[in-house]
């Protein structure tokens, strides 16, 4: 890269858009009046301060609903996708538990879905954790078989946070309808990025998050279908706000920001998606041209292109991240977490543990530039080459040794 191009880059470069996104400046501007001028409690019915705040919240609700093809009455504001996922799973399971006490989900779901399921197991619910195929996509026949007449809810993530694969939600929705089970989806990584339509996809509950789509942190939503009606037991009790499903005063500025972010995402989705696909291909092509033995985890086609999870064989992920300290990414490698276990999502794909240790997730987002992509490629190539030169595994493979034939010591 030329010195000229380098000058145009501000370091560090953010490439972790699955973790969070910056709040869009337009969103911030839309929010500001609601901190100071229009500060009323949106649930106050007796004066104009409350009415104005309520109007703003309802306008935001309509914008969020529009993004996913829902009616505003079906959208409940929450603190974020984690709360939405908890409310969907626990709320539905507990409400219907006399008739139905089973839940079906995937082993590649987000931690908050899996953890909510574990808690429900302790309450006596039976949870089926379905495996996925090598490409990260659920096998529809296995899903069909797993759903019984006792299944209250099926929960499948639309776009996976670690590997970006897109599950066939419409087909899954059709199966759930046939079988009489509700379908919930964690769409935190999908909303605002790919077209979503709760009716076309037969989705009964959908979790979305503000800060994953250039909105503020601390706000999310749960879509809850009204026809046929999905009922749920509230997790948070109080004044009965949000149709009794989620009590507590709504944070007007956050709702407004979330609404604005949804509106922008809807308006600009086509152009954003095209740019991100182009940058993603530019990145992947350059890496593959310049480095051998790099594996893209998850289906190549059925994915959101802004999420590229790559395994750089024979190079441990954390050491690679250490080399590219001016680029913010996430690793599937164990060493970044206290657990020392490699990513359960990659393991679910059948990725060998040693390959899981070499994986890095690159996120491409709305603010990503070509120059940032090119700089990242340069940095990655340089450090992978350096680390392979000091990798005993790379050396052995170059000498023709089959790593699987070695009896490795445990520690």
């Amino acid at each position: 890269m030329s010195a000229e191009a380098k000058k145009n880059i501000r370091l560090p470069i953010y490439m972790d858009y699955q973790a969070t996104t910056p709040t869009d400046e337009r969103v911030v501007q839309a929010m500001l009046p609601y901190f100071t001028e229009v500060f009323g409690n949106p649930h106050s019915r007796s004066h104009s301060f409350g009415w104005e705040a309520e109007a703003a919240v309802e306008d935001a609700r309509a914008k969020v609903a529009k993004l996913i093809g829902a009616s505003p009455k079906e959208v409940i504001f929450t603190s974020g996708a984690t709360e939405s996922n908890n409310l969907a799973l626990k709320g539905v399971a507990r409400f219907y538990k006399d008739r139905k006490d089973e839940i079906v989900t995937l082993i590649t779901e987000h931690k908050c879905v899996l953890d909510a399921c574990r808690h429900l197991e302790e309450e006596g619910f039976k949870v089926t954790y379905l495996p996925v195929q090598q490409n990260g996509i659920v096998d529809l026949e296995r899903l069909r078989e797993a759903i019984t007449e006792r299944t209250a809810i099926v929960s499948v993530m639309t776009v996976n946070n670690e590997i970006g694969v897109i599950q066939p939600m419409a087909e899954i929705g059709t199966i759930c309808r046939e079988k009489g089970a509700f379908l919930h989806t964690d769409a935190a990584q999908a909303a605002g990025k790919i077209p979503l339509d709760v009716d076309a996809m037969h989705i009964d509950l959908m979790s979305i998050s503000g800060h994953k789509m250039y909105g503020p942190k601390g706000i999310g939503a749960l879509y809850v279908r009204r026809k046929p009606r999905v009922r749920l037991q509230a997790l948070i009790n109080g004044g009965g706000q949000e149709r009794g499903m989620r009590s507590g005063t709504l944070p007007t500025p956050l709702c407004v920001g979330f609404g604005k972010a949804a509106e922008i995402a809807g308006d600009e989705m086509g152009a954003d998606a095209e740019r991100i696909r182009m940058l993603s291909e530019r990145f992947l092509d350059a890496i593959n041209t310049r480095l051998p033995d790099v594996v893209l985890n998850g289906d190549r086609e059925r994915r959101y292109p802004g999420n590229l999870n790559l395994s750089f064989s024979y190079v441990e992920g954390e050491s690679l991240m250490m080399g590219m300290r001016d680029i913010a990414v996430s690793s599937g490698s164990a060493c970044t977490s206290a657990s020392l276990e490699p990513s359960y999502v990659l393991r679910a794909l059948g990725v060998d543990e040693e390959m899981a240790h070499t994986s890095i997730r690159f996120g491409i987002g709305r603010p990503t530039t070509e120059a940032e992509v090119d700089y990242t490629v340069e940095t990655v190539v340089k450090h992978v080459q350096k680390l392979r030169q000091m990798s005993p595994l790379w050396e052995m493979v170059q000498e023709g040794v089959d790593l699987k034939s070695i009896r490795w010591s445990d520690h």
Partner: protein
Amino acid sequence: MAYGEKVIDHYENPRNIGAMDKSAANVGTGLVGAPACGDVMKLQIQVSADGIIEDAKFKTFGCGSAIASSSLITEWVKGKSLDEAENIKNTQIAQHLALPPVKIHCSVLAEDAIKAAIADFRGKAATVGGRAAQNVAAEAAAE
């Protein structure tokens, strides 16, 4: 994770990366760890006739702390006798590099690696004399 200054220094300027002829009689090789655990160290020592480590080389697959631990130990063992090198403790490495608790296993691995290299060298030295006789016996058995 934030890294200590010394870990970063060893990561950015690793000492003694390389490989020696593992079949040479004066070279001991230790290969420890497992790819599935996320770290593998290969440590080699070249030993003089009077039992002094003249040179040391390493290659490591692992996190920055693993690379730093192996780089550091190659520096430390040079010029030491086998017994002295064998007595290097992982706690010394961990302390020198200021490794956090979650990275202590990297220093353990470095200690294991030098011990394995020394054992390999000693094993070779012990069998060099006996090998000729062994080969004859093996050939006789094959017939």
